[in-house]
């Protein structure tokens, strides 16, 4: 064992010297090793993603935000048939989403409010109030596709990455007090973004447009979301909370193509 360790040590010291001496063959090996290192670095960079967050970190933040969403919106509506339906429609759409690195999950919130949310990492929620409008499959697809685009285009994650509360934090999931505090901060800001402030209008319109196209590619009539917005906009009664974290339905309708409703 000692002999093996000694041999590894000697090789480690000698190989760079030999490579520099341009001994035929060894230069190629060095180049190959450098390529391997470069690929490894590149892989690590890509694994971290453009936002600087690893996939594991993104999913952990999303899971914690999901806890906050469920807590604030009456808990999960435990209707097995409805949950199965949103997962069938949602995962049919997600089949053609850009991000295939996520395990997409769709759920219903036991709330009369009319709203939908997406948490980073692939969790999408819609409220019972929205689900029971009621929604046809095309309309449900329109709503879910909009939320999928928020995750697919990393809307929340990009904002998190830009924020001061994120700057410089590494090892977000490490088991220590500093990491707990950083995690709390990031989750709190993300929760605030998703549940209180909402995305800016540009990102919402991008999600409307992208969602329409995702629904279309999946084979649903593209006017599903538009139909939902018209239903809400034309409601005679003054409803309670309606897409409070989204731009006005009027503005969203202005930007969607005027096409036949499903």
């Amino acid at each position: 064992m000692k002999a093996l360790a000694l041999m590894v040590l000697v090789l480690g010291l000698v190989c760079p010297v030999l490579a520099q001496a341009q001994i035929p063959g060894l230069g190629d090996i060095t180049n190959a090793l450098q390529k391997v290192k470069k690929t490894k670095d590149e892989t690590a960079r890509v694994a971290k993603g453009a936002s600087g967050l690893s996939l594991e970190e993104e999913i952990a933040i999303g899971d914690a935000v999901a806890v906050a969403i469920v807590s604030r919106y009456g808990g999960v509506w435990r209707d097995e048939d409805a949950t199965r339906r949103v997962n069938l429609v949602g995962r049919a759409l997600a089949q053609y989403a850009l991000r295939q690195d996520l395990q997409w999950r769709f759920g219903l919130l036991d709330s009369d409010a009319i709203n939908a949310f997406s948490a980073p990492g692939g969790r999408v929620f819609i409220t019972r109030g929205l689900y029971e409008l009621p929604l046809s499959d095309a309309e449900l697809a329109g709503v879910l596709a909009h939320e999928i685009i928020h995750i697919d285009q990393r809307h929340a994650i990009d904002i998190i990455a830009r924020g001061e509360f994120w700057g410089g934090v590494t090892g977000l999931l490490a088991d220590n007090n500093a990491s707990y505090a950083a995690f709390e901060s990031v989750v709190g800001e993300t929760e605030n973004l998703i549940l209180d402030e909402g995305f800016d209008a540009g990102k919402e319109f991008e999600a409307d447009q992208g969602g329409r196209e995702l629904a279309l590619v999946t084979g649903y009539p593209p006017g599903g979301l538009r139909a939902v917005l018209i239903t809400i906009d034309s409601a005679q009664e003054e409803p309670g909370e309606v897409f409070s974290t989204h731009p006005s339905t009027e503005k969203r309708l202005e930007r969607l193509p005027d096409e036949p409703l499903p």
Partner: protein
Amino acid sequence: MNSLHQPKSCFPASSRESLLPWFRSIATLGLVCLLALPAYSAEYKKGQKVWSKHYETALLAEPSPLADAVAKVGFAEKLSIRESRGTWLRVKSDEGEGWVFQGNIAVEKPSLAPAAGWTTVEASQTDTVAAARPLEPAAKNYAQRHNAQEAEADIDWLDAQAALVSNQEIIEYLSAGQLGEYRE
């Protein structure tokens, strides 16, 4: 004193005012173009480069999900469009040439691979039920710290329900509804 602290501008005030409508127009046009950019482009051109986005994508002999696979490409492989027919594209790859449904390719190179640890199911294992991925430990700790055990239990229930829907059922749902590549 104030003038020293005013931000420098490339344009004098009068010029700025006269150019403002132009800036607004250009900005509006830019925003319109940005919004018009399709994330899932439905219009493809011959020679356009696109990328595979699934763990494995079959290139088929015919533009039909039932056609034989003539080649298979892995994640994020560059493909060149040769022809389009409805929602199908004939593409060329290093592995061969064949048809692929447009929903199975990306117009931008995907950066994160469908890692087995997260997607749980490979493309070839569509008849298996996806394992329920539980809440991340950090999120569980978060729930404990915020006394949100009920929400945690709700999400556990939701994950178990979601996991009951197998990938094979998704394919059957798409096929029965003539959705995705199964539309006629």
